[in-house]
């Protein structure tokens, strides 16, 4: 379905994380191949969003190891080291988190110009191309407040893509959207996956997960309960907990 190679680009081993005495992650291990698409599903509070934040170093981990491309994320201490990692790993948030004082185009151009120190003219061309790619070319001068949720989320995806990351993380990117606009965002992600971008998605869109993922991980209580290709996990779940969860939502 997607071009893949054997070498994993993201590798988690026995990752532990806790907040104020509460264990959020209790030994999570997973691998994602370059160009692979992985979906993480599971009930609220099972640590899915935290897992994504650990992968790009927004949240430090307590134990275990995370490797992304050439970075050993668990060893990164200084801001400079984390910044190097984040140039390669982008995250798209549930609440879009666009910068409200900048237009759609400026939102996309900011990081490449100021962080990567790229030529403003080239960045502008690339940003316009990305806006066209997410079908928002005509909205380039609109402020986030003037865009619908789905449009804001597509600008947020374009903003992340402008950094030319190796890996894209999606944190429940459709959870805050109207049902009607969910589709346009999913289409954008579908195209990215088809182009060979490595994607890790936390999602509640089971049908989408089934269609797009190479592997689906079901998490509960801070651990991965079951991992399998979507056809197996959704049609023949092995674990009782997985079956119970799927029967609740499907």
């Amino acid at each position, binding site marked *: 379905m997607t071009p893949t190679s054997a070498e994993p680009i993201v590798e988690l081993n026995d990752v532990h994380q806790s907040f104020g005495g509460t264990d959020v992650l209790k030994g999570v291990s997973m691998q994602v191949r370059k160009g692979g698409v992985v979906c993480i599903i599971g009930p609220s509070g099972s640590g899915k969003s*935290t897992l994504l934040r650990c992968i790009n170093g927004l949240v430090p981990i307590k134990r275990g190891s995370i490797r992304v491309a050439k970075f050993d994320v668990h060893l990164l201490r200084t801001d400079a080291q*984390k910044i190097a990692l984040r140039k390669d790993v982008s995250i798209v948030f549930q609440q879009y988190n666009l910068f409200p004082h900048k237009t759609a185009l400026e939102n996309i151009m900011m990081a490449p110009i*100021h962080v990567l120190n790229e030529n403003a003219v080239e960045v502008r061309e690339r940003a316009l191309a990305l806006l066209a790619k997410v079908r928002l070319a005509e909205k380039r001068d609109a402020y986030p407040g003037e865009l619908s949720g789905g449009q804001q989320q597509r600008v947020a995806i374009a903003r992340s893509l402008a950094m030319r990351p190796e890996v894209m993380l999606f944190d429940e990117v459709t959870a805050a959207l109207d049902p009607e606009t969910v589709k346009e965002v999913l289409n954008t992600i579908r195209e990215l996956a088809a182009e060979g971008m490595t994607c890790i998605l936390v999602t509640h869109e089971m049908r989408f997960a089934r269609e797009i993922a190479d592997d689906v991980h079901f998490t509960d209580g801070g651990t991965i309960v079951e991992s399998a290709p979507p056809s197996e996990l959704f049609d023949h779940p092995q674990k009782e907990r997985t079956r119970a969860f799927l029967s609740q939502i499907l």
Partner: protein
Amino acid sequence: MSDDARVSGSVLPGPAPWPVLLPAAAILTHEAMSARGAGASTWRLEREHGFALLAVFLLGCGIAQAQSGAGYPSIVETLWKWTPLLARGFVFNLAISVLAMAVGTIAGFFLGFAQISLLLPVKRGAWLTTHFFRNAPWLVLLFYCMFLLPFQVTILGVRIPIPDWTKATLGLALPVMANVSEIVRGAIQSIPTAQWESAASLAFNRRQTLWRIIVPQCVKRMLPPWMNLYAILTMATVLASIVGVSEMMTQTQRALSAESRPGLLLAFYSYVLIWFFAYCYPIARLTVRLESRYAVNQ
């Protein structure tokens, strides 16, 4: 399923645990911030205050006119005679207010940023400084500056005099600094943490995040409380009369003692008030306009 999706973020630490309450919380935060920025005073000039003032002034003029016997010039004539002197005093009030605001704002910005420093000693020191000067009475600070600063300094053999009004300016700049510091800190901390997270995920460093993303969003929020503070400062500049600066209040007292007619008291003081009202009222109106405009946009 969609309910499940919406709530799931709230189990994890981070902002927005109760999305329904957010708009109300934002409004309350904004109001509290403006109030705090204005030195904990939510009192504001209204048009009615102007009318009341005018009524008092006319009453004062009536009393003065009635009490002045034959042979005295009319009250209007007397006021007109002293107006140039009073106006010269008012210029001092304006100069002190503008300078104290400028000095206090610049110092307050540094202090406000120090308050959010990641270095604990800097943060603690800035907090202490801010709260000391915010809670000290303005008049006490004014007296301190007046009597602790020398009347002249000698630098490299050159004697530089420090006039009283400069000391008064400095004395008033101190509480302004502390209030601006709180306005800056409050505004920066009122920006959702999601903006910081979003900037971090795009590989911005802390300095870039502050200057390119957080502070530009703060300016709008800081402007109304800052203007409010300026109006309050302008009205507080008459405190300088107590320490002998020749501002409008001092000049009024001089005019009154030269006239030595007790009947003029009410007329003269309400006349001074009208001058201040005429200057501060437009600022107050503009502040209200800005506040309502930004309340809609944010």
